[in-house]
């Protein structure tokens, strides 16, 4: 989706605001919403890719206005509803519907360590063959999907060189939408700064992106 979240190369966003000795969470609610978002995923109703897309679905105005963890509040409420873990009445009243079945938490203190250290959205699969090889010149495809994608706008149509094959990963564009894992190779692709930003960029500098087979074509 060509959303406001795809920020690479945008201008006029202002100076970086730095906070000295920044706490991990600025208020207790930030820690709680962080933990709720992580714990609820143990139900496996959606993937990390779906979670990322949940933020992209916010209106641009909301996305820019809200703090990072406020977006997480918005997203969790939206996804709990969308994937049927709570009802609209429950979200609004903050009370469990009378007679609704009580679940047992998918993530408990006893299982949290194992859950937190398990793999996410990655895969090792020697049966999946790479479509490209290291040192090959490639072009990032000019695609504009309306769903989730991890191919930023600033790289589309640009030519780069593969510097490393990272192995096999799930394809976010389909995995986010429950359309399959579509396992494929991901590569580190080096784009010269001048290829991305024009002749005024430094001739020495580069940006590396991690890109899936489906994002690339021969150049």
């Amino acid at each position, binding site marked *: 989706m060509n959303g406001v979240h795809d920020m690479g190369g945008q201008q006029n966003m202002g100076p*970086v*605001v730095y906070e000295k000795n920044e706490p991990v*969470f600025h208020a207790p609610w930030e820690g*709680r919403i962080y933990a709720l978002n992580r714990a609820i995923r143990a139900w496996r109703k959606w993937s990390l890719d779906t979670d990322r897309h949940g933020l992209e679905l916010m209106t641009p*105005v909301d996305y820019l206005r809200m703090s990072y963890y406020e977006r997480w509040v918005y997203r969790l409420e939206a996804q709990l509803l969308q994937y049927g873990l709570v009802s609209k009445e429950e979200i609004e009243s903050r009370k469990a519907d009378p007679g609704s079945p009580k679940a047992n938490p998918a993530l*408990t203190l006893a299982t949290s360590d194992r859950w937190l250290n398990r793999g996410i959205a990655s895969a090792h699969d020697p049966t999946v063959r790479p479509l490209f090889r290291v040192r090959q010149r490639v072009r990032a495809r000019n695609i504009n999907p309306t769903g989730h994608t991890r191919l930023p706008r600033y790289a589309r149509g640009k030519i780069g060189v593969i510097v490393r094959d990272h192995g096999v990963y799930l394809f976010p564009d389909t995995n986010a939408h429950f359309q399959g894992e579509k396992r494929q190779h991901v590569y580190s692709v080096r784009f010269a*700064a001048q290829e991305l930003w024009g002749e005024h960029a430094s001739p020495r500098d580069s940006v590396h*992106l991690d890109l899936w087979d489906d994002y690339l074509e021969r150049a």
Partner: protein
Amino acid sequence: MGETRRGFLKAAVTAAGAAATPDLDRAQAAGQDQPHAQQTVPSDLTLRVKSLESLLVEKGLVDRAALDALVDTMEHKVGPRNGAQVVAHAWVDPAYKKRLLENAPAAIAELGYRSGQGEHMLVVENTPNVHNLVVCTLCSCYPWPVLGLPPVWYKSAPYRSRAVIDPRGILREFGTQLAEDVEVRVWDSTAELRYIVLPERPAGTESMTEEQLAALVTRDAMVGVTKVTFPPSGGNQ
């Protein structure tokens, strides 16, 4: 129809401007002392999150003890001190550094730090000729096991937008001056791979212990916005 549409858009844009402008003014006035200065956090978030947690506990969807543990882990168990240990160990042990550059998750696990988000981590090494900078332009990907949760600035629009198009400008903003002939490599974390910068060991630290070295290594240097300095420049964590 056209007029109505235009009227609607104008109202929407005005509303957006009204919401954004006071924050912008505050951010500019407050400078660096105001966390969250560019964002508005309604005070009812405390209540909203508390009541959401109660609902999910009541329905048996989450376990309070597990939530407590998740928060505790991020506040007390992982953080940039982990990464600093890794960097310092790589500085004093060339064989470890080699393993770290070849297989970061395994080498990091040797020191007892395990992957919590993103199985795969890559360490990119700064040299006199190459400076690395890490960003996630699309969201907030960050090497949790070694650095903890990212700071607000890393997740902010100014950093995410500019790190790829003007990395040298970002570096200058952080007080990092690079010679023209130094190559800047930006790593945009678009997949499930997390990047950590291995900073250069500063001159004058030859006789220091690993522990003393680790105390010099900052979060910012491992993201690549600064270098490790000796004596330490102070400021960041």
